[in-house]
């Protein structure tokens, strides 16, 4: 069956931004459509384009405030209508992220495994077995919200968020998994940590991941980290 193009609502997000909404759920097909639309708009490089914010099921389009919002809207409607339905396989870039699971790096691994009724090693293995998609980057610069978590590994957030989550912490929050780019407060359950730098404003691009990328976690031990950092 050919999937149909999802319906799109357009509303004002700001005087200089439109919000294009395809739905309000974590649906991989809608998310893939958002990334495809963002790529289509970017490839056309309209002179008014300032910023695109692809989210789970919606896209923010920021334009030059000197241009006519109505004309921008008409152009966006044209692009939306020109899109065919997109297969759910999103990005073609696959990024492997090494993770040290458990111990000091993953303070919630044991308790989370207990809660899910499995051994810590099993939770780590199942988390690392998944293939994820960067559904959205937000919360903080470079923080990837990864879709594709095994639904059996979904975990509620901590009742009281931690004041300090180490940079590189790989965590589960609800039905998603993500990585904290920078030391910050946070309420997700921390399974491990990656030595990779997720956000470096001195680099171009500044993030390890781009929206739509596919991601795999690879379990490593501390010795491998020493090697990684060498």
């Amino acid at each position, binding site marked *: 069956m050919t999937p149909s193009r999802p319906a799109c609502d357009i*509303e*004002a*997000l*700001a*005087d*200089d*931004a439109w*919000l294009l*909404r395809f*739905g*309000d*759920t*974590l649906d991989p097909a809608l998310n893939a459509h958002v990334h495809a639309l*963002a790529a289509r708009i970017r490839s056309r490089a309209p002179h008014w384009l*300032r*910023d*695109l*914010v*692809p*989210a*789970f*099921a*919606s*896209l*923010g389009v*920021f334009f030059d*405030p*000197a241009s006519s*919002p109505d004309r921008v809207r008409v152009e966006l409607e044209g692009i939306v209508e020109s899109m065919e339905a997109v297969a759910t396989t999103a990005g073609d870039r696959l990024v492997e992220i090494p993770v040290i699971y458990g111990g000091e790096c993953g303070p919630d691994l044991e308790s989370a495994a207990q809660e899910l009724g499995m051994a810590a090693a099993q939770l780590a293995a199942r988390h690392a077995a998944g293939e994820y998609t960067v559904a*959205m*980057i*937000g*919360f*903080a*610069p*470079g*923080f990837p*919200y990864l879709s594709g978590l095994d639904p059996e590994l979904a975990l509620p957030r901590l009742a009281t968020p931690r004041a300090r989550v180490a940079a590189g912490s790989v965590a589960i929050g609800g039905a998603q998994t993500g990585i904290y780019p*920078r030391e910050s407060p946070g309420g997700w359950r921390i399974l491990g940590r990656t030595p990779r730098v997720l*956000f470096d*404003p*001195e680099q171009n*691009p*500044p*993030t390890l991941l*781009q*929206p739509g990328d596919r991601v795999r976690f690879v379990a490593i031990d501390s010795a491998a980290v020493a090697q990684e950092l060498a």
Partner: protein
Amino acid sequence: MTRQASVLQAGLLTTVQDLGRSGWRHLGVAHAGALDPAQAQLANRLAGNAGDAAVLEITLRGPTLHFDAPVRIALTGATVSAKFEGTLVPMGRPVELPAGTLELGALRGGARAWLAVDGGFDVPMVLGSRSTDLRGGFGGVAGRALRAGDTLALGETVVPANATSLRSVPWWIDLHHDTDPHAPIRYQPVPQAASLCSQVWRVSPSSNRQGLRLQGEALPAPAAAGVSEPVAPGTIQLPPDGQPIVLLADAQTVGGYPRLGHVIAADLPRLAQCTPGQRLHFEACDAATARRLACAAQARVARIQWMIDTRLASV
């Protein structure tokens, strides 16, 4: 030789800002930039800079700075008590100072002021802007507010200042918008969202550059939000406690709280001037009005810039 400003006292929250960052929001990078870009631009033009040079944004109480060489400065925004070596420094006009100490004190009638220096504050450009991203911890001075002991390099200037004592001009620009400060803040509501208009809100002291937090009678808890969506400076969010938050320049790029609408561009600068405890009320407005008011505000700034350029050319 590079001129420098040494920070003797930092003030309450003084950050380096320019007109902000574009093009990186898809990676979670906030726009940042001066909370009132027009006032920052005008300060720059008065100091003889391009509008997008880096300025200091001052919050509630200003810093004390020592300049090691003559400078041309300009102050815009809320009225700030300003003294150079004991002499009052006027706002809204170019002022030349010899080397010495500029003491900026408390702000009156608003929460923020902007200080431009000829040549601009020369901090490194990060992702296309010199603005401080406080949440991301980059840009400006090490991604944070100024601290006593910091030194800021000043950029090269076209017409070097060479005053041997404080020297100013007999004209100034009117910094204060002719709108009534008690007029409602206009916003474009999202259909079916709870209305902000039915009560007078108070500005919470926990407001910051990321968001203006409002306090009042809690609005009815909205149905649980779907999934996070893009947000922008001006977005009005309603967290579960029913106390709205209006996002400002340091807004995150996506948010999960239900949205009530957005404050129109023409009224955003007024939010920069809200002081803790201040009362605010809102009025719904349509897109056409928002556009007309934004164009009028732009035209006003353009007129003032033209006036400044004409005057400076004849100095």
